């Protein structure tokens, strides 16, 4: 069972609330202060993506977040209810997963070394795990397409920010990211190290108390 679960109406205004809650739970779970900015941004990115997907496909369905203190790790899962277009064939094969991106630390940019998209895609050759083409829902991409002007051939990525850019940003922030697309929706699972020292200290204090038979 998750330590804290939140579900919210898919409105952009609520993404900030989700960020604040996730950061508070992360802090409570012993995530180092230096990592809290990364938690805040990654959870915000995942929620922004889910909100955009819901607003297009199922605006009455809530976006769900589960935050769990796993002891040595702090885990956040952001789930949407929009089936991935790739989910159908994968499910038919019994895999239950359309794409399973497991990204390590990497550069989420365009063509730089260490690209975070080093996953083991199960949905087909050459698939970009971050694309999740079933619903091109990256808000950054919207901004760019709204502008409509052509790139001028400089350092800008072709067509502006690529689809799935938010997920690519997450891969650069979270210690461990797994993206799973099924017929029931897409889940973005992220984990960060929690303070093992704090956990050990709590366990020691607990043990000491019991040995002393404190009331």
């Amino acid at each position, binding site marked *: 069972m998750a330590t804290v679960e939140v579900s919210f109406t898919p409105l*952009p*205004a609520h*993404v*900030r609330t989700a*960020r604040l809650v996730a950061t508070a739970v992360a802090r409570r779970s012993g995530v180092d202060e230096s990592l809290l*900015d990364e938690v*805040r*941004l990654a959870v*915000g*990115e995942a929620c*922004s993506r889910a*909100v*955009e997907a819901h607003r297009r496909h199922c605006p009455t369905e809530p976006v769900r977040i589960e935050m769990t203190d796993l002891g040595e790790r702090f885990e956040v899962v952001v789930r949407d209810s929009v089936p991935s277009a790739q989910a159908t064939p994968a499910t038919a094969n019994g895999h239950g997963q359309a794409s399973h991106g497991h990204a390590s630390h990497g*550069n*989420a*940019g*365009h*063509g*730089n070394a260490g690209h975070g998209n080093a996953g083991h895609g199960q949905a087909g050759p050459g698939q970009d795990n971050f694309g999740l083409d079933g619903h091109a829902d*990256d*808000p*950054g*991409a*919207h*901004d*760019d397409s*709204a*502008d409509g*002007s*052509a*790139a*001028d051939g*400089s*350092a*800008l990525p072709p067509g*502006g*920010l690529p689809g799935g*850019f*938010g997920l*690519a*940003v997450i891969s*650069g*922030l979270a210690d461990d990211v797994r993206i799973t697309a099924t017929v029931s929706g897409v889940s973005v699972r992220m984990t960060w190290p929690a303070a093992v020292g704090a956990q050990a200290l709590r366990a020691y204090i607990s043990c000491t108390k019991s040995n002393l038979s404190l009331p």
Partner: protein
Amino acid sequence: MDLKLGHYNKDGIEVVDVEGEIDVYTAPRLRELLIDLVNKNNYQLVVNMEKVEFLDSTGLGVLVGGLKRVRAHDGSLDLVCTQERILKIFRITGLTKVFGIHDTVDLAISARKSEK
């Protein structure tokens, strides 16, 4: 906190002051301002992000969109930012190669002037 926006002209360059959080909720306001400035023939922009507390990919998208717009008019969009938490986002996305990022508004303006 919410997003506060302001702008003023200095040495022929339009400086946009941004304060607060740029995310999926607030970014449309920044996009509208940038579009409005370009529509009013301001093609040399400096976005001062020193008081930005949060920036996500939506905000990056707005800035890239603004850059494309001004470049369509041979203009420029430079950023002012010294906050490590914000600079990190530009670094991991590779956008430090796309934007000129300066320590102060004056340095951004003088760098732009010297390129002319």
